């Protein structure tokens, strides 16, 4: 009886092991792939931008500053179907350590300005200015890109500074996403 039990247990554990081993095998990669020599999609944004200083005013004020050149290079495989890309921009509110006053992201605006196209200049670029950078939205979109190309622009950031701000250095995080 004991021996039988032992055999049974052993069989069960072997079975369990087999199942355990078999599962990942059956869920293994089923798609055969091949390597491709492919160009990249890339984005460059100036490292950190200084937006200037502003005295505190009773009625609030508006700070306008240039962010620096944003460049998107598209060297992905081009063919008759062409390519397209979109750049989303968003920001977090301006905060300063130890200060309770903040400038909300909804008070930050983004103006694209002129887009300089290089390489495949016949492609179409659509630009959208943002009055609020609180949610990510498309600022520049390119379509019908038929050869390796790049696009560059120098956005203007407009910050509506509320009144009653404490004197400090406020920092915001501006995100550019290309996809």
């Amino acid at each position, binding site marked *: 009886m004991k021996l039988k039990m032992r055999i049974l247990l052993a069989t069960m554990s072997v079975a369990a092991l087999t199942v355990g081993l078999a599962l990942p095998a059956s869920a293994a990669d089923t798609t055969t792939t091949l390597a491709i020599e492919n160009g*990249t999609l890339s984005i460059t944004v100036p490292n950190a931008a200084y937006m200037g200083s502003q005295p505190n005013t009773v009625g609030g004020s508006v700070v306008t500053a240039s962010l620096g050149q944003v460049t998107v290079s598209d060297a992905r495989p081009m063919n008759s179907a062409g390519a397209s890309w979109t750049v989303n921009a968003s920001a977090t509110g301006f905060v300063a350590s130890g200060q309770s006053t903040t400038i909300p992201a909804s008070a930050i605006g983004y103006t694209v300005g002129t887009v300089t196209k290089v390489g495949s200049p016949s492609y179409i670029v659509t630009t959208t200015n943002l009055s609020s950078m609180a949610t990510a939205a498309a600022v520049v979109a390119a379509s019908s890109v038929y050869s390796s190309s790049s696009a560059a622009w120098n956005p203007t950031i407009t910050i509506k500074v509320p009144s009653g701000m404490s004197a400090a250095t406020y920092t915001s995080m501006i995100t550019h996403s290309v996809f």
Partner: protein
Amino acid sequence: MPMFRWPRLGAELSGSEHRLTRLALRIVVGTLVVISAVAPGAAEIASAAGATPAPSDGIGLRLVEIPVNAADDPRAQKYIVDHVAPGTLIHRTIEVSNGSDSSAHISLYPGAASVQDGAFLATEGHTPNELSSWTSITPAEIDLARAGAQTATVTIAVPADAAPGEQYALIWAEARSSADAGVVAVNRVGIRVYLSIGSGAAPAADFTVDSLAAARADNGQPMVIASVHNTGGRALDLSGTLELLAGPGGLSAGPFPVNLNTTVAVGDTEPVTVELATEIPNGPWMATITLGSGLLERTVEASITFPRSGTAAAVPAHEPIVIWPYLTLAGFILVGATVLLLVRRQRRLVYPVVKFA
């Protein structure tokens, strides 16, 4: 069949665009010359400077491998596009590059995406969705030296109980500038993921172009709006061109690139706009639009006339009437009839000989 040809009437760039392009090209050439003086290896790029943009100087991302069965699919070369059964595990190699002049710390992570109102939409930060929660990237953090590149593996583990249908996500590579003062810049580059889930063969992509409408924008620019209906089982990334033929005095214009960065969700109908040159006469024109997504391509035509303002009624579009198959058929019938006639005549001639023999 090449879909892109150099612009003809009206598709020319404006003078200012030309100047900008020339200026930009000059800047690129200048930059490349400097680079080639520093690094002899870059001389090859410099010789092709006519159309090659400046080498990537930011954070770059590319796909390194694609499925063998999708090798010809232009979409699969840029995005992760696949159809898998529930319970499947897939891997793709990607490569991150740092083209900046300093070392960079890069985070790799999946994020949610969706297809809505004709656009592929990204979300902020690490916002998850179902597909992104099945996706992992190893390594997730990479330190890259100046001009460095490293590969990473994207793994998507589709659960056995995943609902059938197409899902979307983005694979992000993110770099941040130091938090000195003012603005911290966050740069992200994404590779789109279109994953169709279901047992059996991949659902076919298909679409119809139902109608074409001529319109005029508020600034007087003529436009053509095509209505595209996604009748297949996969999202479509549309691209294409429009040509205006048989216009007043036998004029033709185009091809004009289709103005879209449009992704049409399964079952949706989306307008696709083509902006034309202002000097285009009102018509009537035979407008021929060719739209494609991946390996799929559709060409339709409709007779349109541009209104003085607003949008004209949409004209149902039909496939171009091609005469040559009918001509070929007529030719075959003619040849067949002649042969038959000849054979009969031959028999009539031969028959008596046989009879008398």
